């Protein structure tokens, strides 16, 4: 059995009266990409910063690589790599120089050229840090976390604000880290990122973990079903009520979301048939009917009853 590199139990962190983390529990197995998914303000950054020793916890137990960050921070700092934000420590240092500087902090750092090619900044290696674009700074920050060659890498929203191509590139970097046997803990507020990248994940909402497991397991647990999405236009409330009551569901589920009605069903053919029948009977037109697999977004909607909003972008 793979050992756990992170064990968190009943972790609580308050800021004055605000419960930023309200008793969270999770474990991270060695060698996986572990995601913490949640909307902004859910407590993701607080979790990372408490795990890496920047905050003191108010309650609970933390074990990172077998160490308690409050007791053995010095030891822990040598074994992990952490990306918190864009690096602006020395804005006039060249990319290769700041990588060299960070490499000097660690006993067995990665080769600079190796990191440069992974983060795709070879042709920017002689640029000043402050002259980099936002996305490039972000990749450099990830590079600075990687260079530690630590067995555990923390990435706090590594792809926020990146364009689609840069995001894909960074995903590959993260997958490479995993291929090298490292464990990656990342936070994200992108559902698709968590779904495509993570082996295991927890969904954090308002300082609480509301679901955990692999993306497939989560979707399976909550939705073996397929999703039928209908456009809301032309559907009045009484007809919606009829859909709710009269359409065939095996495991009845009906949700509404910005302009759409969502029907979840594990017997999609029967549900569809009865839906069209209903429309026929009442001479209604159904617009823009889409049938798709459930996503993490559906999971979030189902658990919280709130739509998952991506406020950061």
């Amino acid at each position, binding site marked *: 059995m793979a050992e756990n590199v992170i064990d968190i139990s009943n972790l609580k962190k308050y800021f004055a009266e605000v419960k930023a983390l309200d008793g969270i529990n999770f474990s991270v197995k060695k060698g996986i990409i572990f995601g913490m998914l949640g909307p902004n303000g859910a407590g993701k950054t607080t979790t990372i910063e408490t795990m*890496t*020793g*920047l905050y003191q916890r108010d309650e609970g137990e933390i074990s990172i690589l077998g160490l308690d960050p409050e007791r053995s*921070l*010095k030891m822990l*700092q*040598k074994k*992990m790599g*952490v990306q*918190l*934000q864009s*690096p*602006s*420590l*020395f*804005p*006039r*240092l060249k990319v290769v*120089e*700041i990588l*060299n*500087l*960070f490499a*000097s*902090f*660690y006993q067995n750092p990665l080769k600079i050229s190796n990191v440069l090619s992974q983060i795709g900044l070879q042709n920017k290696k002689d640029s*000043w840090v402050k002259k980099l674009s936002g996305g490039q700074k972000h990749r450099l920050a990830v590079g600075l976390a990687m260079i*530690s060659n630590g067995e555990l890498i*923390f990435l706090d929203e590594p792809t926020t604000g990146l364009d689609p191509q840069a995001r894909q590139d960074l995903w590959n970097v993260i997958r490479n880290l995993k291929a090298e046997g490292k464990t990656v803990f990342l936070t994200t507020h992108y559902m698709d990122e968590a779904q495509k990248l993570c082996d295991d994940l927890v969904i954090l909402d308002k300082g609480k973990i509301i679901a955990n497991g692999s993306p497939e397991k989560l979707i399976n647990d909550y939705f073996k079903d397929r999703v039928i999405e209908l456009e809301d236009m032309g559907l009045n409330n009484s007809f919606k009520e009829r859909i709710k009551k009269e359409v065939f569901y095996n495991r009845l589920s009906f949700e509404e979301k910005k302009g759409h009605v969502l029907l979840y069903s594990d017997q999609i053919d029967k549900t569809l048939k009865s839906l069209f029948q209903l429309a026929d009977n009442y001479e209604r037109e159904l617009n823009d009917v889409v049938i798709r697999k459930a996503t993490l977004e559906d999971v979030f909607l189902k658990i919280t009853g709130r739509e998952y909003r991506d406020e950061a972008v």
Partner: protein
Amino acid sequence: MKLFKEVFIANIKELLRDKSGMFWLVAFPVIFVFIFGLIFTGNTGQQSYTIGLVLEGSSVINNNIEKALLKNPSFNIRKGSQEEEVNALQEGKRELVIIIPEIGFDLNSQYDIQILYNRDLNGTANIIISSLKEIFYSIERRLTEQTELFNIRPEAIQAKTLSDFDYILPGILAMAILQLGLFGSFQFLNLREKGIIRGLGVTPLSRSVILSSEILMRLIIALIQTILIVFLGKWLFDVQITGNLLQVFGIVIIGALSFISLGYMLITFADSMESGRGIVQVVQFPMLFLSGIFFPVEFFPSYIKPIIKALPLTYLGNALREVMVGIPAQTTMQRNIIILLLWTLVTLVLTIKFWKWE
């Protein structure tokens, strides 16, 4: 140690590549030396004062006095009648008028030598008068053959030509050190406010390494500024540097430590770059004027004197003037150094007490 070296090198690169930062640290003191140098010295690079000379007699001694005055390169002597010269003084064409009666060989009488000067040019006049006194005392000693009686060493006879710029040059250095100490602390304030210092908490780099490499770098800058200011003053404006450079370095380091510590103390009370700037300005500005680094403070009203006596820059100025150009201050060197060290100690204790890394 290896970490310290790496961070220190990074700090140096960062500094050398920061053009506006370099301007303040290097070009600014240099420009100051030039501007003050050009204002307070003549074209020859020698300060010269226009002095009206009124001779009421033409004895041998009178002639000797005239020759001695004419020989002095700092003096631009204009001869005339008392009326002409006093008029010229009132019109601002003379710094000072000296009226010398007929002086005979009667060594038992006393001769009054009258000196008239513009009250507004008190500082300048005092410098000229002290030079004049040297000239007259040397003539007097020769006449009365008192040299051995008072055991006055021969070098005291050389009247030292003190110019305003001699006074100002150490002041420029003191100002540079003040700026370096106070404004230099913004570098750390900036890192702190951006959360970068906090973020370093996830790496094995200790935050104190960042801070100590900053301090070392600023001490080195202080020494570079010293060399620049001293040699520019010496070569371009002929300031007579009397002290040895090592002593100057010693005082500079003591002063720099004092102001670096003060700078860090001030930013402990700041919660943003803006408030930091405000606090530092409030401290720095009055200090520049009240510490007498650019003009003597003897003429300040007496109620300000306690403030002047409390300011560390007063003592840095005094100490630098003494070791650089040999202008003795009312405060002894020992006292200057002790007070600077006391300031360092007190600000350091307060800095440690109120320090925030984040």
